[in-house]
């Protein structure tokens, strides 16, 4: 039926069924579509939420990165206005919070932070980056906030554009490269210093080697003995210098490797200074300089410490003072107790000279290794440039510090402090044997400092001390006060009145002792004349309290305690009746030992290896009073040889003194020697005095 009910156009049953099937199909499809659409929409929402959360997390990460970035990072919009500034920028620019500059043009902000010229340059770079649509990078020194300490920045300006190439903003990154640049410069400086040092070391080593090699050839060819002796003297001088250079280099290597160690022994501080003064005095008098020492009476008599290393520091500083002070100048050594706490004494040592002085720029580099004040100093005065660096390390190991006070052209004072434990107080004192109240002493010296110090020492002993600045004044005092028990007279001060003054002193008190204050060099020339005048004793300058005390007690005839020092290098040793076994594989070393000790009448049998040493000893154990054992030998080294000897079933094997001769003087090497059964060690190159000391300790004398 059609729309108005006409039965001729009614669809057939087949058509209706087809229609129904079609509708059912469409309905099923629609239902499926709807269900899927619903689920899809929910899933879409879920995924959108996940992505938004992910974006938030990304922003959090980026924020964290930006807030903790050490760089200065700025984001500007397309107009050049701030849209982000990192925390570092806000801190450097002293801006309390970003809100204060948000939306402000970068030029307005930077105008308050950097100089106008810098801003103009910076703005030009920004414009360039935007115009080129590519990153611009450059370095610039900027002083944010005019703090007076400009920093160097590596600056990156990157324009941001959208897909169509339209500008959307600018990213600016400031990377502070000041420290890197400084480190690079320091590294380059250090490299240059090391190169200069190597060149210097090469010179310092080659120069004495040249002298040794050359003088050896000349000496060999020389016909007369005088010329040969001259050459030997030069060889000795050059060898000593070379050994000093090598020792410096080795010490520095130990320090850099952290292997420098202190050997703690009980020692007399004053005696140590005296030994150092004796070593340097020769050069002082060569340069006609005045060398005075002042030792604080409050300093304990003994300390526990590494006296050799302290002596090394004092020797280095005194050596420098003498080296850099012209002829006729003066050098002063002052040592005093600076305090005491927690069982440790603070000792302050000051060495002052009237030398060339050191500028502030040079002072800043002084204690660094491989540096002298400047390379021209090296060329003029020589030296490895390591002494002060080594001294600094030693002082710092003793919980101290070292510094310089100086003005260029005005002289210098090198001062160091160290902390040491007190040693045991001596139970006996020379002063106990003398009633000092009855002793009246006169000191005559043209140097008022010397007189005052001398008087302080004497009065410290408890005696009376009169001082006179000239021979004339002294004569006046003798006439007024009568005689003195002892008079200390400076040879130069007395001058032409020496004989008269000494005569007056003797007249005042016939038993009076007259001691001449003089340098060791000058005494050689003046001794005969002085003795003729009646002054047979000399007190060498600089004088130390213990030296004065010794002279006084000797002069007054009081009993003396045995000297602390063993016999000096000059005293002849005599080991008649003793025989030692020398185990040494190097022929030249055997020759040296045989030659050195020939005058001492010491019998020496040589073994060329550890095997030979064990064999020779086991065949005749009672023959040898002592064994000197080299460590590094072929077949069997000295340690193994010692162990084998100690293990022999012979009574003497356990008791014979065995002394190591070794170039290895690290503590662990010495300990290895002792563990092997040795009694002690001497270092190489052989020091005659050390060997003598060992011999005197163990042999029958």
């Amino acid at each position, binding site marked *: 039926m059609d729309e108005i009910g006409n039965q001729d156009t009614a669809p057939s049953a087949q058509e209706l069924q*087809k229609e129904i099937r*079609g509708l059912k*199909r469409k309905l099923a499809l629609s239902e*499926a579509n709807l*269900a899927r659409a619903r689920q899809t929409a929910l*899933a879409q929402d879920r995924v959108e939420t996940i*992505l938004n959360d992910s974006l938030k997390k990304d922003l959090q990460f980026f924020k964290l990165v930006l807030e903790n970035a050490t760089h200065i990072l700025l984001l500007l919009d397309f107009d050049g206005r701030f849209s982000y500034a990192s925390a570092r920028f806000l801190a450097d620019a002293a801006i309390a919070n970003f809100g204060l500059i948000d939306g402000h043009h970068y030029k307005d902000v930077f105008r308050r932070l950097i100089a106008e010229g810098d801003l103009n340059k910076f703005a030009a770079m920004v414009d360039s980056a935007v115009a080129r649509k590519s990153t611009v990078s450059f370095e610039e020194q900027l002083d944010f906030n005019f703090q007076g300490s400009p920093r160097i920045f590596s600056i990156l300006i990157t324009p941001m554009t959208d897909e169509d190439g339209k500008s959307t903003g600018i990213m600016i990154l400031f990377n502070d490269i000041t420290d890197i640049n400084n480190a690079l410069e320091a590294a380059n400086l250090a490299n240059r210093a090391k190169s200069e040092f190597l060149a210097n070391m090469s010179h310092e080593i080659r120069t004495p080697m040249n002298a040794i090699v050359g003088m050896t050839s000349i000496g060999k060819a020389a016909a007369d003995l005088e010329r040969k002796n001259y050459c030997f003297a030069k060889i000795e001088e050059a060898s000593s210098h070379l050994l000093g250079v090598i020792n410096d280099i080795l010490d520095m290597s130990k320090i850099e490797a952290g292997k420098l160690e202190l050997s703690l022994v009980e020692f007399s501080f004053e005696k140590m200074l005296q030994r150092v003064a004796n070593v340097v005095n020769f050069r002082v008098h060569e340069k006609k300089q005045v060398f005075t020492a002042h030792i604080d009476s409050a300093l304990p008599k003994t300390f526990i410490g590494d006296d050799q290393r302290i002596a090394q520091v004092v020797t280095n500083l005194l050596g420098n003072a003498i080296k850099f002070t012209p002829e006729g100048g003066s050098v002063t050594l002052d040592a005093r107790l600076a305090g005491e706490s927690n069982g440790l004494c603070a000792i302050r040592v000051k060495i002052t000279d009237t030398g060339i002085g050191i500028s502030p720029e040079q002072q800043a580099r002084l204690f660094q290794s491989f540096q002298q004040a400047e390379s021209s100093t090296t060329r003029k005065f020589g030296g490895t440039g390591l002494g002060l660096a080594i001294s600094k390390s030693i002082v710092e190991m003793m919980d101290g510090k070292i510094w310089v006070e100086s003005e260029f052209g005005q002289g210098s004072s090198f001062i160091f402090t160290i902390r040491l434990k007190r040693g045991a107080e001596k139970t006996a004192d020379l002063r106990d044997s003398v009633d000092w109240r009855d002793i009246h002493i006169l000191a005559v010296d043209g140097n008022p400092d010397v007189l005052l110090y001398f008087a302080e020492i004497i009065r410290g002993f408890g005696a009376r001390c009169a001082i006179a600045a000239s021979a004339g004044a002294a004569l006046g005092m003798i006439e007024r006060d009568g005689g003195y028990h002892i008079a200390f007279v400076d040879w130069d001060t007395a001058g032409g009145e020496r004989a008269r003054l000494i005569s007056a002193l003797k007249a005042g008190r016939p038993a009076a002792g007259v001691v001449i204050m003089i340098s060791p060099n000058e005494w050689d020339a003046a001794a005969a004349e002085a003795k003729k005048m009646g002054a047979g004793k000399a007190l060498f300058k600089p004088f130390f309290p213990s030296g004065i005390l010794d002279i006084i007690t000797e002069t007054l005839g009081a009993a003396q305690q045995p000297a602390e020092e063993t016999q000096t290098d000059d005293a002849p040793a005599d080991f008649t009746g003793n025989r030692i076994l020398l185990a040494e594989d190097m022929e030249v070393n055997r020759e040296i030992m045989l030659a050195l000790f020939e005058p001492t009448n010491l019998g020496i049998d040589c073994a060329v290896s550890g095997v030979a040493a064990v064999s020779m000893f086991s065949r005749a154990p009672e023959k040898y009073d002592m064994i000197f054992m080299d460590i590094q030998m072929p077949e069997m080294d000295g340690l193994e040889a010692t162990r084998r000897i100690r293990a022999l079933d012979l009574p003497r094997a356990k008791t014979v003194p065995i002394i190591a001769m070794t170039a290895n003087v690290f503590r662990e090497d010495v300990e290895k020697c002792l563990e092997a059964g040795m009694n002690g060690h001497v270092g190489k190159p052989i020091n005659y005095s050390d060997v003598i000391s060992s011999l005197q300790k163990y042999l029958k004398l």
Partner: protein
Amino acid sequence: MIRSVTAATREIDDAEAAVAEITAALGLEKNLRKNSLGIISCFSDFADTGVLKAVCDALPFDCVGATTCLCAARAEIDQIILTVTVLTSDDCDFKTIGIPIGDKYEDSVNSALTALLAQNEKPPALFLSYFPLMNTVSGDMMLTAIDKATGGIPLFGTAALDHTMDYSTAKTVYNGEAFREKLVLAAVCGAPHISFHIAALDESKFRSQKALITASAGNILIGVNGKTALEYLEEIGLTKAELASGLGVIPLVVDHKDGTKPVVRAVFALTPDGHAVCGGAMPVGATLTIGHVDRGDVLQTTENTVKPLADKEGVVLSYSCMARYLVLGADNTAEAEKIRAAAGEAPYLFACSGGEICPLPDADGRLKNFYHNYTNVFCKLS
């Protein structure tokens, strides 16, 4: 050179009428060349009503294809429709094959393709591919087996689809018959001009936080970052219900880290162990994230891809993931409209896909076959 002519019919119940409509539209007498091939896309009921068989029987050449939930040809776009795209050529020829996919599918694929390849001196330039939509053998697995047998000859095509919630009527089509478990291939032999294009997800819409696939078995995602797939997916905010819905509208993005672009995988189901059944291989060591596509993205990416392709020379074949169709919501023909508009008078084929088969260039520029989800894949043939 390959020419093309297309036809469509909505006659789902009347086979005679459908055949008449199709043959009239195709104009076989004047349009056919020496060798021809028919590509069928149709609503699955066309197979049940006998229209599919009648149409294929009426055509004097082999027909391959698959059921779908939406397709288009000429000016016609609809769900309940059957389209025929005829490829015809004097210098290219076409060989078709249907391979049952069972337990020993690799052997079947290998022997069938070996035999086919032996028939020609030169290997085919392309295999038009129609995969059955199966739970036991995924598209990736079939693709791998084909690649192994052919040495990597380019594959282009689709997995079967339908309009139901469980895809139970999705079938491949071979010479008038529809199959649940038959792989259908058409070798295009000769030297046609071929190009492949993909409209994929916008990478800027991927979740930036990525995870590592730590365990898998083919297309079964077992472990991510050391946890089960379900644990990880729930951790990032998805729900079990969404994942288990079977719709496959959650795009997981997999980066193989081999220089190729990331591929998208839909999640079709969850196993009781919390493993995700995905639309393609989920290799261990690849990174995983989640993507997003909305209506605007679908239309924009399709338009951007198809516009340069449509001209009077040749034919554009387009298979678009069913998930893209779903996000269009009520306006579910909009993507097809874009393609129709771009094609103008030129022949084209559009159909919704249960899985897209299309090669991608690797880091060295060599084409490598991939099975995709969430994409619209294009093949320009001429």
